[in-house]
């Protein structure tokens, strides 16, 4: 009995040994089906080094742990008809490839790299050009998506795919990617405990970043610029947004950041510059907006009356057409210690905090919120006078929405 056990152990060790010994590096050259052949002949732990050239191959199914690398000039071309990599195994790595021309289909979402039910996959330093979906994670976990360049030319909001699309995944690290020209730059649905950092998402047809039902994720140091509708965040809790840039999301239905049904989240140290609406909040609970910069926006904040328990503290409001707009008179949020460039109060006791409260909602913004047609009087002499009069004698503006401690000087953030 003992000997049998020893033999089993020995053979297991031997097998492992074999596996390690035969973890070879294979060079693959462009030829019809060379990559298919290489993948199916590879053993667990092998590395395939793709030589420069165009590989017109598609539906490359990977079901074992292998590494596929290139030095940036190995091009997988799916000829606008097919999909490229389908990863079903854990710990696969794809690095330094260029994947282009993924096709479109009605039934399946074709992607450059699709990760299905796998763990620990890493996708680094690839170029994904003119694909329908670029990277598609489906029930994936602990995957790293690093430093990829993702671009698409067909700006089609209805039929286009997303740059990085993740569904029902967790513990992802998405870092240093550049995404442009897709429908949504980065799209999450049911993705939890993930970390999104240092990405640049610009000129996408719809949202730069779009996520729903994705809890406890952290977004830091990303730049979202010039996207069709900015960034939308819905139905999530525990979202942390630090140090991101929301720039130039300027259009008739564009938001820097749209929050809907968000709870217990933090928005800190972000910069909102030149958006039609800096942050639009609807049905949010306990969202802290701290130390952000709002500059040159149409509306810096639109806080609907359905929001509650939010703190707006230590933000700079500079050069916005309207600082805050709201659609009701109830206000369950707190504004304090912000800098408002339109504040014209005084500070007699020299504690650098204004002695009279600042009312950030102007009367004209109340009117135009209630009756959109009144926007035709935008920038007319009358509305300026009304704002001045209302400041002296508030009657129409929600008097509970005020900053009791407005800071006199611009805050250093």
């Amino acid at each position, binding site marked *: 009995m003992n000997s049998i056990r020893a033999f089993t152990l020995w053979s297991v060790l031997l097998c492992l040994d074999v596996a390690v010994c035969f973890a070879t590096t294979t060079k693959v050259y462009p030829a019809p089906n060379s990559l298919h052949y290489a993948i199916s002949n590879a053993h667990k732990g092998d590395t395939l080094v793709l030589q420069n050239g165009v590989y017109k191959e598609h539906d490359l199914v990977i079901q074992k742990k292998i590494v596929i690398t290139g030095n940036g000039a190995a091009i997988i071309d799916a000829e606008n008809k097919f999909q490229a990599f389908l990863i079903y195994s854990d710990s696969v790595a794809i690095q330094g490839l260029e994947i282009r021309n993924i096709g479109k289909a009605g039934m399946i979402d074709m992607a450059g790299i699709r990760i299905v039910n796998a763990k620990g996959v890493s996708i680094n330093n690839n170029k994904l050009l003119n694909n329908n979906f670029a990277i598609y994670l489906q029930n994936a976990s602990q995957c790293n998506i690093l430093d990829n360049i993702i671009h698409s030319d067909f700006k089609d909001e209805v039929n286009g795919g997303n740059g990085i699309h993740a569904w029902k995944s967790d513990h992802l690290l998405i870092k240093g990617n550049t995404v442009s020209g897709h429908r949504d730059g980065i799209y999450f649905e049911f993705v939890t405990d993930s970390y999104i950092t240092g990405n640049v998402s610009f000129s996408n047809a719809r949202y730069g970043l779009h996520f729903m039902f994705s809890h406890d994720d952290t977004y830091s140091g990303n730049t979202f610029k010039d996207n069709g509708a900015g960034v939308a965040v819905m139905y999530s809790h525990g979202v942390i947004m630090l140090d991101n840039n929301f720039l130039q999301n*300027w*259009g*008739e*239905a*564009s938001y820097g950041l749209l929050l809907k049904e968000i709870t217990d989240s933090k928005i800190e140290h972000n910069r909102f510059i030149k958006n*039609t609406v800096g942050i639009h909040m609807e049905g949010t609970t306990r969202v802290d907006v701290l130390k952000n910069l709002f500059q*040159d926006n*149409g509306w810096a904040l639109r806080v609907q009356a359905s929001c509650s328990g939010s703190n707006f503290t230590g933000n700079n409001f500079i*050069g916005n*057409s309207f600082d805050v707009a709201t659609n009701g008179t109830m206000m369950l949020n707190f504004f304090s210690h912000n800098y408002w460039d339109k504040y014209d109060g005084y500070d007699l006791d020299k504690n650098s905090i204004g002695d009279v409260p600042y009312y950030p909602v102007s009367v004209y913004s109340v*009117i*135009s919120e*209630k*009756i*959109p*047609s*009144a*926007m*035709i*009087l*935008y*920038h*007319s*002499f*009358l*509305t*300026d*006078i009304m704002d001045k009069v209302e400041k002296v004698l508030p009657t129409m503006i929600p008097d509970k929405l005020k900053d009791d401690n407005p800071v006199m000087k611009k805050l250093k953030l």
Partner: protein
Amino acid sequence: MKTIIKYVLLDLLKNKTILVYTVILAALAVSVLNMDNNNSKGLLSLLNITLLFVPIISILFSTIYFFNSVEFTELLLAQPIKRKTMLLAEYTGVAFALSIAYIAGVGIPVSIFCSGLAAFTLLVSGLFLTLIFSALALLIFVLFKDKTKGIGAAIITALFFTLLFDGLLLSFIYSFSDYPIDKPLLGLISLNPVDLGRILVLLQLDVAVMMGYSGALFKKFLGSATGSIYTIACMLFWIIIPLVISVRVFKKKDL
């Protein structure tokens, strides 16, 4: 007619008010455009200045000038000159001088500090406002015999168009907010040249997005080529109609 225009212009040059007006406009324009390094914002402030000052100054100055030169007019009418020619020549002289003042005061700084369609539209609408409000001044001149009454009427007209009209419009919007009033609003706005000028310029600036945000129709219609042509046609009517009426009234007026 040319000779009369020439003498009117010479008279205005001696007057120096036009010169002061030019200098003030230039000073305002330069300071506003320099204050912000953001061109669009500078233009916006300049638009506000134009919309406030140009109508009031044009109408007041022209009215006073017309009334002051009554004797000159009467003297010339003793000569074989048609009343129509006389009136239009005087109008042309004054309007021309004010337009030159506007172009020199605002146009030169604008063309130095910023360029583009928005700056051009600002100049065009400022010019139109000058022409319109001097035409209205002419109408006031032929309708009133008394100078004080005339100046009073000029002030009221200017205030009406810069302030009161918008107030009435706002109360209209308020009382009919439950109805689809976008189209009637477009019609109503054509009744005020100041609003027309404002919208014409705003649509060229990037704040136009904010107008489109809540009232898509304004941007869609007024922002299109048809819309611009419509606006300019309306402003032309605002020059022509007061002129035609004043000529008619002046023909039969007992001097």
